[in-house]
């Protein structure tokens, strides 16, 4: 199979506090109101955290009874659900080996539930620490479960970093296809809720509302039969360094992206906290188009949240609400990075951006 030239979005999937699937995500964002919070108990404190949790799935998805997933932690369940939704009808093709499917999983805190639980057991009595729990603490456990469920043995990376890492994952997956390493690639961002993460986050942003879930984008290189959303570009990763603060990194990212038009969408990572949002708001101060900020609605879902941003942006393009969308992520502590999605022209099989 020859190497690809363009990268198209074949499918999207999501699990969020709004529910299991892209549809509840779309509806929650369309409603535009902050999703209700729940209390999360916090060790040693009378006052609980306010967080946004993923509701239990109804009905329980069949994949949860797979032998590999019976003991898996929530992050794996979210990642798998989003991945399967994104793959849609191509699941059968992957399972029968008709094409090579790469997997890129992006996380920031990863498998924190089981890590905390296992360490707690270790502190109490190492001899009784559960050997069933420990393997699920490893960062790449969810990606491994996805591969096992689908029966794919192609390349599979787990990337760790801040919230911007999901966009790096998109670039990596696309690059694998350009390089003919795989025929399709699932890029998944996932996180799970834990009081430990919430406890750590409050040290930096007292009013942050943490959330959890997953988002998945399924990339393919084949030309679509109808207009489809295309990954046009992913900017450089602009690091937060001694000589480059968040504001400068955000501005650098902005300069790499389209100036925008009134009909375009900016899907950003702001969440209504001035000390967190300042650099990103400033970088996009002159944006002429529509803005969508999923974290205002769903909370700080870390790697899952940047995946929701991309899923939401792609979804609006698919719904013909906008001809083009920019995703901006000024991350927690590593990088500012952006991506641009456009609707492809089926005749030329090339992107048809307005610039």
């Amino acid at each position, binding site marked *: 199979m020859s190497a690809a030239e363009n990268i198209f979005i074949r499918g999207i999937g999501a699990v969020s506090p709004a529910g299991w699937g892209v549809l509840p995500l779309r509806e929650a964002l369309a409603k535009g109101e902050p999703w209700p919070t729940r209390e999360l108990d916090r060790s040693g404190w009378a006052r609980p955290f306010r967080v946004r949790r993923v509701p239990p799935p109804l009905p329980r998805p069949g994949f949860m009874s797979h032998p590999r997933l019976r003991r898996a932690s929530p992050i794996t369940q979210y990642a798998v659900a989003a991945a399967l939704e994104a793959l849609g009808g191509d699941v059968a093709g992957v399972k029968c080996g008709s094409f090579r499917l790469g997997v890129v999983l992006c*996380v920031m805190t990863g498998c924190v539930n089981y890590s905390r639980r296992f*360490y707690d057991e270790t502190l109490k009595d190492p001899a009784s620490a559960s050997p069933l729990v420990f393997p699920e603490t490893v960062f*790449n456990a969810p990606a*491994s*479960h996805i591969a096992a469920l689908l029966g794919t*043995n192609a390349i599979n*990376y787990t990337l*760790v*970093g801040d919230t911007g890492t999901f966009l790096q994952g998109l670039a990596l997956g696309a690059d694998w296809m350009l390089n003919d390493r795989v025929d399709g690639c699932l890029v998944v961002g996932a996180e799970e809720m834990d009081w430990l993460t919430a406890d750590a986050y409050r040290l930096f942003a007292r009013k942050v509302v943490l959330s959890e879930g997953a988002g998945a984008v399924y990339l393919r290189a084949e030309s679509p039969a109808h207009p489809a959303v295309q990954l046009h570009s992913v900017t450089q990763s602009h*690091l937060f360094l001694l000589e480059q603060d968040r504001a400068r990194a955000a501005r650098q990212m902005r300069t790499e992206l389209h100036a925008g038009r009134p009909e375009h969408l900016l899907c950003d990572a702001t969440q209504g906290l001035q000390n967190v949002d300042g650099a990103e708001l400033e970088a996009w101060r002159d944006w002429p188009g529509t803005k969508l900020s999923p974290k205002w609605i769903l909370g700080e879902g870390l790697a899952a949240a940047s995946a929701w941003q991309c899923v939401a942006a792609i979804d609006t393009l698919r719904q013909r609400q906008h001809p083009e969308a920019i995703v901006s992520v000024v991350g927690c502590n590593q990088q500012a990075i952006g991506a641009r999605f456009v609707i492809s022209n089926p005749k030329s099989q090339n992107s048809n951006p307005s610039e």
Partner: protein
Amino acid sequence: MLFPPKYRPGPTSRVVATGAGIVTSLGAGWKPNAEGFRAGRVAIQPVTIFDVTRQRVKVAGEVALPPALPETLLPTRRVRRLDRAAKLLLLAAHEAWRQSGWASSDDLPLVLGTTSGGMSLGQDYYHQAITRPHSPRRQATRSLHYQAQRQALDLADALGVRGPITIIANACASGANAIGHAWDLLRRGRAERVLTGGYDALSQLVFAGFDSLQALSPTRCRPFDAHRDGLAIGEGAAVLTLETLEHAQRRHATVLGEILGYAAATDAHHLTQPHPQGDAALATMTDACRNAGVTPAQIGYINAHGTGTPLNDSAEAAAILRWAGERAPRIPVSSTKSGIGHLLGAAGAVEAVVCLMALRGQWLPPTSTLESPDPICVFPLVRQPTALTFEHALTNSFGFGGANATIILRRWEPGIG
């Protein structure tokens, strides 16, 4: 732009290492490690950095950190906050950086592999959060520096580099994946230089985790021994300065060796156990050879993943037999984990540096703890310090979750490029 990538037109580039830094329980730096690996020294000793009194196993390949870190661009305040993992990484990177003669740069990708980043800080955070929940003292620093991107950013600031940071956490294959990814960026013209490697520090959680799985040897780590009973955990880091051959030649750099091929695959058999016949390992060895343009007959030495667990070593042996076929009885194999333990996310990078050392010195590192070779190993196991003339080495790395990777390295002699 990360995407679409800007490729340099023309054929793929050759990729060479011009600097290598290494820290293991054998010591800090190329020299003590080369001497230790060549002699087959075993540097496994009682763990001192956390309490192991209630663990089944009480030894590991613990690094004796030097009293001071090398001078870098990192402010003293930041240096004081570095955790054990960041120190290991910085030590290895500084050695590679100095050896390469590289200068700070605005466009230098950093690709690292790790399994647990600054896990010990995460543990400290948790401990304080449950014992003194209302005390925020040092908690912000711990929560920040526990994250792998913090160690990478510290390294970038220490050396004055600005480029995308990619952190691959593919369990015990992470270090090999990082080097392989860097190799891929270079050969396809995405970059002219990449700083890459792997690191992991000992932590109580991970130690207890392997102990709970009864994967740690209660006797002695003896990879490929018929009576092997588990692995030893270790810690350390290895970093390589990789660049295209053209770039290295333009600046008249000393080349340590060539990275010739790489492949990665996923073993979907089980979360912690390899496929008994080593299907994914066979795939990565085969694909890496194809990428490198070599055949098993040209491989002069295999640095095996060789953890010393019954399941890993038998699966890897099966894969080597399938891959090498009739050639298997003539390819020397050893596992250097017998001397330093399993360095998890650092293992693949450390073992790539061991291969560079062996290729440069034309010697083979022995598995000196081996007593009774497993009959499944029809290949010659290196048990004594050995001198050998060889051109190509292959190193395997396998991890939890079925992460498999293989790297092929080539000896470098001035004038052959």
